[in-house]
């Protein structure tokens, strides 16, 4: 047996080790508990945070140190999975991508669930209507012809570039739930579904554009878009959402991509 080696276990975050001082930040969180039957209410929490912390870190501190009943979703904590879209100071953002230093901490930070989807608990909403619209646009490659040469479906750089922007979507719902049309008309497909339709409509390998364009020509389709640009502003992936929707509108009018 090897002798026991001394492991140097670091106890703090890099910020603590660098000798940085934390400061007090107040978070005002909109809570809702379906079990009590009470209305939603605002609750504020004081947390010690570093400038390098994110809103997600603040939520963790609250949940782990102050109030374990606080409910929110997160998985990757690095802007990849799309679990933690929420309304931070009145705008849809990912908690894991919003740095404390970018917010005005002389005021409390307001955190609430995204709007327009059924509220389940605290910061958690029912995403099912959102995913239902997503599934309806057939977000997968459809081709009825065998690939040329029998192996791969080749694509030029320009053809791939055509839909590059809309491949970046992580389905966080920040765009759809920032849309005033979606808030009042939950039947509207919403920006995210259109973005994911765009991704296949403009893919040169796909052969189902006509069907998707027909689906989106529906009363609740692209024509519901009123170009408020809230979606473009909210997208954590920087997708030009309104532009993508406009391109689908033009394709619907043309009748082809």
């Amino acid at each position: 047996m090897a002798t026991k080696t001394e492991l140097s276990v670091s106890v703090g975050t890099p910020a603590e080790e660098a000798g940085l001082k934390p400061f007090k930040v107040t978070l005002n969180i909109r809570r809702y508990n379906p079990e009590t039957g009470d209305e939603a209410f605002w609750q504020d929490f004081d947390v010690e945070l570093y400038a390098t912390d994110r809103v997600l870190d603040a939520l963790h501190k609250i949940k782990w140190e102050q109030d374990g009943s606080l409910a929110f979703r997160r998985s990757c904590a690095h802007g990849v999975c799309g679990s933690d879209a929420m309304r931070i100071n009145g705008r849809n953002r990912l908690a894991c991508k919003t740095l404390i230093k970018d917010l005005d901490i002389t005021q409390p930070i307001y955190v609430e669930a995204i709007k327009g989807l059924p509220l389940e608990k605290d910061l958690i909403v029912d995403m099912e209507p959102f995913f239902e619209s997503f599934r309806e646009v057939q977000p997968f490659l459809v081709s009825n012809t065998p690939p040329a040469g029998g192996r791969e479906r080749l694509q030029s750089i320009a053809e791939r570039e055509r839909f590059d922007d809309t491949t970046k979507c992580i389905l966080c719902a920040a765009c759809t739930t920032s849309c005033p049309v979606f808030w009042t008309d939950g039947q509207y497909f919403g920006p995210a579904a259109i973005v994911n339709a765009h991704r296949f409509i403009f893919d040169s390998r796909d052969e189902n554009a006509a069907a998707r364009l027909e689906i989106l020509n529906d009363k609740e389709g692209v024509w519901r878009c009123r170009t408020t640009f809230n979606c473009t502003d909210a997208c954590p992936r920087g997708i030009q959402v309104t532009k993508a929707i406009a391109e689908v509108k033009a394709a619907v009018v043309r009748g082809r991509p």
Partner: protein
Amino acid sequence: MSNGQTRTKPAKGQGGTLYRGNTGMWSWVLHRVTGIGIFFFLIEHVLSTALIRVSPEAYNAVIGTYKTPIFGLVEVGLVAAIGFHALNGLRVMLIDFWSKGAKYQKAMLWIAIVIWAILMIGFTPRHLMNVFAEMMGA
């Protein structure tokens, strides 16, 4: 463990805070408001014009009230609303059907507002002069 001090208060309204949208959202709100305003004007316009079939006297009486200075001011508001709605409407069409429209949407909003302001500066003094000249003459 931090101080754990928490205070609670009821959330105002079910929807939470007002969504802090950008110029795009506010121009849409304004487009809606002016659109609805113009719609009611049109209804009123059709109704009062239809009065002439009921009785010319009633028609004249109604039209007479439109010649008062108060309606002169209302007319300024109406022209302002139609002007904004028309110019922003052009912007919205360009956003949808000009390939660079989405990119320049903000610039186009400012251009629309500048053109609107120039039109209003040209229209308002002249119109009000006419309105008040009419009032003095009457």
